[in-house]
């Protein structure tokens, strides 16, 4: 018998829908619980791991880098907050904040000499010198991490790549492609000449002088007219290691 439309039919259909929804909710809840459980397990495992290897993480820069990579893969940032569980467990937040402060100090101290652009290697060397008493080693990776935290302050700290080297910039200077090429060329001897730029980069002398003048104005370059050949040399303290020792004198 074909069912006629009526109150009874509608009620049956509604009841069935409720049943389905109830079942669906149950299944979803089960899944969520399972997921939560898994996450909790995972988290506790990660905590166990971190606890177990706490000393390695603090003392060994390579291990620390790998731990950071692992955390990044699963979407955990141990540095996100200093109040969070990770910071309490590892004290790792403090470590990077401390590094950050020291990096700022070094950048400020060397700024008159290098115009606010410093070689990452040199920065690390100075950082290690500063932390002499501290046994925990500091790697370039740690420096980079600490600097990335400084960005939040909007203070214009940035890492730029010039050739094979990384430079840390602490003043809001706009370096264009020409400037980068000059810095790259200067890495060989610590200085460049207008002739050299014309020859190696096939620039006109106007273009070379213009770019060099900007670098001079920014305090990134120094002129040297004392060489026998009478050609003006442009030196770049940020690519030669002289400032390391200049600063240690201060």
């Amino acid at each position, binding site marked *: 018998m074909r069912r006629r439309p009526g109150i009874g039919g509608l009620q049956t259909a509604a009841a069935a829908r409720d049943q389905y929804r109830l079942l669906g909710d149950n299944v979803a809840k089960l899944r969520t619980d399972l997921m939560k459980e898994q996450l909790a397990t995972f988290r506790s495992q990660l905590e166990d791991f971190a606890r177990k290897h706490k000393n390695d993480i603090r003392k060994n820069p390579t291990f620390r880098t790998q731990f950071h990579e692992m955390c990044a893969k699963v979407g955990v940032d141990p540095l996100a907050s200093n109040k969070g569980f990770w910071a309490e467990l590892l004290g790792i937040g403090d470590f990077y904040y401390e590094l950050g402060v020291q990096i700022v100090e070094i950048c400020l101290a060397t700024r*008159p*000499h290098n*115009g606010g652009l410093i070689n990452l290697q040199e920065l690390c060397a100075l950082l290690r010198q500063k932390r002499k008493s501290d046994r925990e080693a500091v790697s370039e990776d740690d420096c980079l991490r600490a600097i990335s935290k400084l960005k939040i302050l909007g203070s214009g700290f940035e890492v730029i790549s010039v050739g094979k080297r990384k430079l840390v910039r602490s003043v809001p200077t706009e370096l264009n492609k020409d400037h980068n090429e000059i810095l790259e060329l200067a890495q060989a001897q610590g*200085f460049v000449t207008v002739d050299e730029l014309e020859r190696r980069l096939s620039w006109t002398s106007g273009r070379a002088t213009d770019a060099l003048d900007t670098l*001079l*104005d920014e*305090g990134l370059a*120094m*002129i*040297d*007219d*004392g*060489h*026998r050949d009478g050609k003006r*040399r442009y*030196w770049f*303290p940020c690519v*030669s290691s*002289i400032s390391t*020792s*200049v600063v240690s*004198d201060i």
Partner: protein
Amino acid sequence: MQKLGDFKLPQFFNYPPYFTLQPVRDTREKQVQLWKELILDYCRTQKIFVIGLEEEFPLFSNHLIERSLSNEAREAFLSVLVSEGRAEWLDRGHRKCLILWHRIQDWADILLHFVRDNGFEDSVMTVEEIRTGVESRGTELHGIDRTILMRALKLLEHKGKLAIFKGTSADDEGVKFSV
């Protein structure tokens, strides 16, 4: 670290551009600052009182990197010292410069200490005795430049701590302390 005798030279001394006057203001300020400290330090440790701009002076050239300061740069660095009271030109042409690593006032204080330490409060000494005598041996006053010493003495005379008078020999003067 490069050395001049027993004097340790700072690293910037080996960086060629520091021997050329820098055209950009901030960079030049830093450059002048470093040179100023170096000149004062060197003169203090080596007991040098007068720098002649055209004479050979160990700090003005670095043979290792084949650089030397131009006359313009020498005068610029010394002029800053003069403007800060740490040096004085001895001639109008700015060719000779008196270096005051202690200001005249400080020299006067050192002199007073010397007088008190040796119980010369009411004594008479000649200027030459102060400069080269047995009593001043081992103190900072030993070998002090005559011009500087006379300036310090005049300052103290002005304050009534001593009196300067002509001695028997024409070229030496006597000092009567009344500290």
